[in-house]
């Protein structure tokens, strides 16, 4: 990925890759597995293929899916103050705003911590499973992947985990607070989500959606 394309262009457009951040154009050269193609101008990673990444991502996505469902309904914090006990699940936390005019906020909170991560996992599976099985891509797979990418900044599970820790310290002197099973599920979830993000090479996905292997 050394040569920046000069102004008079005689290379077919399919052999070009353009940095999405700074619009520098390069002659496409797919790096070896384990290597990275990085934009020379702004250091954005353009291509970073990994061996068996598809299968790993699918495994991680399944794990995320199961943990997400579990973490939604199990209690994640319980509180005990002078005999008054209360334990809450993530659904309860999201619905904390459900009274009165804050109902919109309840919906937004639920979406950010449960629905959007869930949607992204399902879109990822929908897109990647056919590719890994060498089948033709699923219908509208490209739109699905694009939606999944657009939702990325709005998926806030990891922020919620840190929020839990802050809330815990806030009420620590008011009552005894303990972590429930869902908290540990959510913590594991965050690790899996980060791993999945770092394994995924977007360019490789686009490329295999565009040129599916004939089987």
């Amino acid at each position, binding site marked *: 990925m050394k040569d920046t394309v000069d102004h008079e262009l005689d290379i077919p457009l399919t052999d070009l890759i353009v940095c999405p951040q*700074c619009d520098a154009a390069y002659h496409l050269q797919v790096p070896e597995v384990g290597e990275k193609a990085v934009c020379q101008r702004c250091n954005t990673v353009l291509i970073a293929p990994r061996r068996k990444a598809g299968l790993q991502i699918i495994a991680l996505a399944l794990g995320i899916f199961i943990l997400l469902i579990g973490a939604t309904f199990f209690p994640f914090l319980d509180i005990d103050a002078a005999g008054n006990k209360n334990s809450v699940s993530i659904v309860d936390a999201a619905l904390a*705003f459900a009274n009165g005019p804050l109902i919109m906020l309840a919906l937004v*909170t639920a979406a950010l911590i449960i629905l959007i991560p869930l949607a992204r996992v399902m879109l990822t599976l929908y897109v990647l499973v056919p590719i890994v099985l060498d089948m033709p891509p699923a219908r509208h797979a490209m739109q699905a992947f*694009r939606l999944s990418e657009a939702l990325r900044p709005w998926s806030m599970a990891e922020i*919620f985990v840190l*929020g839990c820790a802050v809330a815990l*310290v806030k009420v620590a002197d008011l009552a005894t607070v303990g972590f429930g099973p869902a908290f540990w599920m959510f913590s594991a979830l965050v690790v899996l989500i980060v791993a999945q993000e770092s394994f995924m090479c977007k360019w490789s996905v686009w490329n295999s959606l*565009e040129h599916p292997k004939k089987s």
Partner: protein
Amino acid sequence: MGIVACTRCTKAWPLGTPVCGRCGHKMVSRDFQSLQKVWAFWLVGLMCYIPANIYPMLKTKTLFQVEESTIIGGAVELAQHGAYGVSLIILVASVVIPLAKFWAIAYLAISVKTRLPAGNHSRQLMYEIVEYIGRWSMIDIFVVAILSSLVQLKTLATINPGPASMFFALSVIFTMLSAQAFDSRLIWDHEAKDRGPQQDV
């Protein structure tokens, strides 16, 4: 150079192609309305940030008293209890980061029009930091949600969300939209030999 590239999937197309043929993303060589959108979202975000700091974020009812605390008030209270670490997290996430974000987005948007003393690389880095860190301001909303669902101990103590929580969430969402509307390719244009695509393209 006569090409336009998809910012979603990096594929190049002949100039003037409206929609990416691979992924269906809308394409423009440069989004010249970008700055207008940035400023519009930026302003709404800033407008929401003011009531978010004036109104109470949390209403705490204990046996003897009802207490309403704003964002800064709550952090100061925590520090007085000795929880300096947590009060610092809250101050950074809900005061320092939002203010720095407003400043950074404004700086980037102005720097595209007039030359300011910051190189392309530092501006690109600034943009990436703003995009990455913006989401973390939501932490305060999640803390409020957790606290007000958890601390419902009948007569002993209850915590309920205050009106500031909604304004704060809106402020975070609008600044995120503002940062996303910024076309980072504009940063690099004056470096190109032809000074980048012009307005009429």
